[in-house]
């Protein structure tokens, strides 16, 4: 019988398991990470396995997952980035969570800029177009199940655009 009184809740970095003999508390003691910007965590959801992130900023602005800020809104859990097996790179068994930023005409990210995190089969490039892309997390799959996620970013970002008269636009995340 699982005890129901004094319910425990797992805090970040803690694994809490309830079983018939009580609770087991564990933490990951090898390769333990710290709570840094853009830290990804694989989570289960009603629609499958997805990704949640800690808050990260690009030039001071917070990206969104869908229509919600990536760290959630007051009183609500952070949104989950749905991971679709159809986006997996078949050759490598990998996919990426990618940050897409659309700067304004002057190449500056402002309050009206579109900043979203999406799931894709490529880590994104830094050349051409009006949308700047950079990977946020590498997801490793086993068949149709994501089994491992590696953080790409450990810090908040700054964005710089380089233009030239005779070459393509280059996007850099510093």
């Amino acid at each position, binding site marked *: 019988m699982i005890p129901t009184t004094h319910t425990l809740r797992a805090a970040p970095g803690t694994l809490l398991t309830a079983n018939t*003999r009580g609770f087991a508390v564990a933490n990951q003691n090898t390769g333990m990470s710290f709570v840094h910007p853009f830290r990804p965590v694989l989570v289960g959801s009603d629609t499958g396995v997805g990704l949640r992130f800690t808050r990260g900023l690009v030039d001071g602005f917070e990206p969104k997952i869908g229509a919600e800020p990536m760290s959630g809104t007051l009183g609500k859990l952070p949104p989950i980035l749905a991971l679709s097996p159809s986006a997996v790179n078949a050759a490598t068994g990998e996919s990426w969570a990618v940050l897409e930023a659309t700067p304004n005409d002057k190449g500056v990210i402002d309050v009206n800029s579109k900043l979203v995190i999406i799931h894709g089969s490529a880590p994104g490039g*830094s050349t051409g177009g009006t949308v700047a892309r*950079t990977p946020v997390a590498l997801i490793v799959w086993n068949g149709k199940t994501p089994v491992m996620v590696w953080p790409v970013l*450990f810090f908040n970002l700054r964005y710089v655009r*380089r233009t030239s008269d005779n070459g393509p636009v280059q996007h850099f*995340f510093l």
Partner: protein
Amino acid sequence: MIFAPPVKRPDPAPSSGPRLRAGTGARIVRVPGGQSIAMDNTTWHHPWQTQVYWSPTWKQWVAVVRPGLVNGRCPSVLTTADKMKTTPSFLAPITAWDGAADIARAARLADDSQTPDGTTPIYVPLYRNPLIPLQWQELGGADTPAIPSYFVRRGVKSGSNRRVMSADVILHQPRLALTSQITFPVDLVLGSSIVTQTLSERAAASNDALKVYSLPQLNPPQDYDSGEGDLQRSYEEQTWDETLICTVFLVSPPGATGKPDGAWIPFTKHALFWNLNWAQPELLPLVSDPGTTSWIPPLAGGAGSLVINSVVASLNDMTNQAVNIVTTHSLAGSFWTPTGGGSDATFPAVTTPAAPSSGFDKTAKSKAAQAAALKAGALVDTLDPAFPYTALPFPLSLLS
């Protein structure tokens, strides 16, 4: 003397509360108010962290590099089917790590009849913990300048008869390279030749990939002079960029001879601590080509043509050189860590609190004692810098 009567200790945990069991990395202490959970304070493993093992199978030292990413991609370790078949320790991570597809692949590799070519390259990503055989160079004894002073303080002294060897673990990134082709077409009509330099890009070999491997020492990049000297000769840049992940040192027991074995002591000195971005400059075409002068009508009954054409050829040479001075630059790429700090990747020093004068704040006391020890130089003597380590700054040349 009067002694106080013994006091019955309270029940260590309330019977109505949940019973806790210590899992991995956790420690549970029963106290009068209930139960206290403590987590082991283990060191964070940063990207590119390298661990070194003695492989009894291979009879040599091998390294395992914790995955670091370049532009979000995980580097691989290059091996062959033959090597995987003969080395169970190499094959084990693949078969144990994931599912049916890789187990089937491993089975195919293990079956001679199913493997068409044992030398076919196989790329194993770092997140599958492939083993990297280390290639060593002898640094010598205690009097060798190449040996860090770190080892002198650990017994590598004159007369100790200890040897030190080192191996570099290297990150390899393929890239486009700049090539220069000089031609001297002879114009039979004008009696002159115009030196033409053609700049172009050369792609990396098709089987080259983002990878990690070991060399006795990282080769410095090809000496490239972007000045006028390189505008007068044909050349080809190398089609890759490389940077050092870490240097592994082995210190021998006293009096050791021959190749290093399991009795030697390994140390690692890291050069990378964070994931990387990488980019290379582009070879941009000219907006408007100044062109060259190719034909001058005969003057002075044709007698002046030879002189004039000679001058024109020289002018054309100079025009070509001027154009290439503008367009030529090395296509060597650059690595940087996206720290959010722009071009500056210097982290501030970690502040430590002052020692509390009184009280029971064990954490503050511990940090203060650690700070005092650091100040005294007791803990400064490490091969790696302290957290938050160091990072590679963004190269501003990419914006010019």
